[in-house]
């Protein structure tokens, strides 16, 4: 394609937009050739201005509730310490969330905010993000072992990440003593649960279908193999149902907070998970892995491949992918 830009087009375009100077206007209007080009560019402008087909109301609801839930999730407070007082302080106030809901609805040109659960993060137990799931899909082999561990960020080994996850840091201990005024010792597992609840709200829309194979909190696991066994056992008892949420929209909702770290995995090569498939189901849990709290995000595709992402909160500094092959 050649670039057929004529210097006159800048003048004509400005004229069309009412941004030309009086001298430029005179020049354009005195030239039949330029006026003809005005018509041509005006037609192009009208094509671009044509209405975009609006989104279905259910999708709009999902987008808005997802955004509100993301706003209700605490931002990372830095370091390896989860300070619940800080987490709560940083939450967007409810009135602000309500304002945000109105803004989001207006921005999407939706007349009503139906089915928005402003408290979705606090009471939901199930998580669903699935589309056109194969209802007859076979169960994941509960005896399967993890085939691959992928350390995502920072660029150290998965083993190192797990070691760091297994042993609460000295920073954590010092921070415990640094927050006596709160009157409550920081509870990392509770904070992980708090975080999980916020994300769950994004997955529960009016079109959601139940997919809840994991308990809210998995049994404490001494190592990854034990954790994988528990996850595969849970998955083996649940078949992802048909849903309506496109895979990438679902994962975008899931990853809004730990976006970069998890998206690096989801956008990268992951042979055990078919991200091109329109079928995904997701569930979340918290787990104490060798003494350290982790958030567990399980994503399962139509072919029953599953990946458990273990997220080190609150800063998402370690995201380990535990790939499970049927």
């Amino acid at each position: 394609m050649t670039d057929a830009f004529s210097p006159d087009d800048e003048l004509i375009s400005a004229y069309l937009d009412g941004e030309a100077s009086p001298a430029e206007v005179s020049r354009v209007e005195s030239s039949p050739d330029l006026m003809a080009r005005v018509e041509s560019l005006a037609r192009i402008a009208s094509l671009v201005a044509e209405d975009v087909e609006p989104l279905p109301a259910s999708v709009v609801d999902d987008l808005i509730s997802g955004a509100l839930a993301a706003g209700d999730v605490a931002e990372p407070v830095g370091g390896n310490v989860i300070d619940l007082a800080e987490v709560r302080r940083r939450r967007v106030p409810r009135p602000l969330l309500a304002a945000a809901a109105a803004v989001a609805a207006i921005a999407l040109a939706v007349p009503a905010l139906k089915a928005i659960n402003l408290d979705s993060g606090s009471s939901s137990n199930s998580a669903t993000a699935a589309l056109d799931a194969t209802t007859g899909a076979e169960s994941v082999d509960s005896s399967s072992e993890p085939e691959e561990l992928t350390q995502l960020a920072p660029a150290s080994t998965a083993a190192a990440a797990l070691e760091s996850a297994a042993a609460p840091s000295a920073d954590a201990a010092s921070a415990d003593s640094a927050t006596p005024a709160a009157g409550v010792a920081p509870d990392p597992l509770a904070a992980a649960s708090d975080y999980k609840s916020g994300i769950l709200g994004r997955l529960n829309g009016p079109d959601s279908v139940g997919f809840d194979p994991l308990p809210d909190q998995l049994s404490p696991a001494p190592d990854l193999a034990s954790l994988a066994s528990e996850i595969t056992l849970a998955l083996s008892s649940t078949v992802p149902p048909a849903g309506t949420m496109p895979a990438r929209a679902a994962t975008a909702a899931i990853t809004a907070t730990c976006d970069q770290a998890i998206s690096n995995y989801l956008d990268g090569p992951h042979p055990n998970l078919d991200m091109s498939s329109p079928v995904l189901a997701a569930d979340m849990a918290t787990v104490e892995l060798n003494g350290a709290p982790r958030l567990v995000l399980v994503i399962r595709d139509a072919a029953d491949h599953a990946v458990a992402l273990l997220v080190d909160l609150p800063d998402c500094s370690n995201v380990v992918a535990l790939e499970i092959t049927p």
Partner: protein
Amino acid sequence: MIHSISRRITGNDADALDATQEALVAIVKGLHRFDGRARFSTWAYRVTTNACLDELRRRKRRPQPTISDSRSDDSYVAALAPRDPAETVSAKIDVDTALASLPDEFRAAVVLRDLVGLDYAEIAEVLDIAPGTVRSRIARGRSRLADIISGNQTPPRNRQSSQP
């Protein structure tokens, strides 16, 4: 409007949905930082445009077939050129395809002008560029769109100019 901007800038439904979600999340999260110095709509459009450009950058990192992969420029132009008024539906599809062929910065400026109706000063604020650059980008973007949709591939040096 957020979804409309996303749809026109990203050029497809899936990426538009992702960009819309990202924009709404950013708006909700950033609402308390909105200081009122700009109009809210201008700020929201800026957030949306950035979300779209981020989505396009992510898309470029993902391997996928492109127009140049699948057909030559000549056949591409031929496919875009509407042959008669009955092809209105095709023309509607083609404007997205034609927009997709523009550089991201041209496309964003054209969409903010023609779809959203912002003036040059507002677009300059949204894109954080000079108004003169806005004028140039919109003109170049429209010029390319016109050539693509009309099938005109005449090089600029051969085009008659009324410049004195």
